[in-house]
């Protein structure tokens, strides 16, 4: 337990070890620790940022979907309206066409009947004249009585 040279030896050993630690051990380990701290900090910040961006993007996407939905319902409404319009148009066209054709048919019928009547009248008057000629023969001068015969034919 005497104090001897060991004391100096131990002091020298300590100085050497502390110097070595200061030079070659402490700086690299602490640098690694600090770098890791920095990396974790940056990672957390990046995570926060991306979280914010995600929320933003989600809001944007929602907006786009809403807009699209609105447009789609608009287009659908328009299409419905257009279809109704087309149907209505078709209906009025049909009615008009029918009436037109009806009118045409009616006009044709009238025309035909008129023509037939004219023909008939002509024939009847011819028959009447012929029959009257036959009945009266010489007594009646065709020329003098022509106006009477004409009137008759008209009344028929």
């Amino acid at each position, binding site marked *: 337990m005497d*104090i001897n*040279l*060991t004391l100096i030896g*131990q002091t020298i050993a300590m100085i050497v070890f*502390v110097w070595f*630690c200061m030079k070659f051990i402490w700086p690299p*380990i*602490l640098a690694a620790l600090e770098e*890791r701290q920095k990396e974790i900090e940056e990672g957390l910040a990046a995570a926060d940022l991306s979280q914010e961006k995600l929320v933003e993007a989600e809001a944007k996407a929602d907006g786009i979907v809403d807009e699209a939905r609105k447009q789609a319902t608009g287009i659908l409404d328009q299409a419905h309206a257009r279809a109704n319009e087309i149907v209505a148009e078709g209906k009025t066209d049909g009615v008009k066409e029918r009436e037109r054709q009806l009118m045409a048919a009616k006009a044709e019928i009238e025309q035909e009947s008129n023509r037939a009547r004219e023909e008939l009248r002509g024939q009847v008057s011819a028959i009447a004249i012929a029959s009257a000629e036959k009945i009266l023969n010489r007594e009646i001068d065709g020329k003098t009585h022509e106006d009477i015969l004409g009137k008759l034919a008209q009344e028929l």
Partner: protein
Amino acid sequence: MAAEGGHGAATSSDYIAHHLQNLQVCKAEAGEWVWNQCAGNPMAINVDSMFWSVLLGLVFVVLFRGVAKKTSVGKPSKFQALVEIIVEFVDSSVKDTFHGSSRLIAPLGLTIFVWVFLMNLMDLVPVDWIPLFSEKVLNIPYMKVVPTTDVNVTFGMSIAVFFLIIFYTIKNKGVTGFIGELTLHPIAPPTRGLGLIASPFIIAFNFILESVALLAKPVSLSLRLFGNMFAGELIFILIALLGIYQLPLHFGWAVFHILIVTLQAFIFMMLTIVYLSLASEKH
């Protein structure tokens, strides 16, 4: 393995004395180097203390340098994680206490902590293993394996700390500041009037007081560590004398000693940091 071990030791006191004897070498008066006849010779060297302390210092340096050489930021190995825990622990202890910037104090704290811890840890090796091995196999009669049970080792470290205290005081406060710290506290000497006559006495009083306080720092630092480890080692030796009953006792004391080993290493480091931060702070 108990009482019959040792250098032909017959009695318990011989056994204890043998275990507490350092392996010494010194130059005898005749001029040649002699082993183990150096009692009271101040030029002797405790070879076993030096060997184990340097060996354990090398263990620290090699292990930590190995980690420092291939530190990985992204994927640390398990041992790197352990080293980083220790480094961060020392770093936060230093940052809590020492408010200046110094490239020396944190590595100093780390070296002291790990080195003293490893030296203390040798106490947990059963007391007879290494001495018996060295005696029977290597023919070395004495082998004290716990360097911190040698007062030279603890004093050697505390003296380095003592010089660092003086260096930091002078560096931060100047030579006048250092002298002022030794002479102008705790009682400020009067600088004018009749009180001036009393000033030399007050300065002398302050100087005695402050010198004792300054010298007490390394002395208490080293004696605390030495006392704790020496007492722990002595109790291990006493337990080893008990024969077969030593096993549970030895286990119990070893478990308790794990605490002391770590605590003493921590206290040595912490007090070193505190002393150095006191030396660099202005009052």
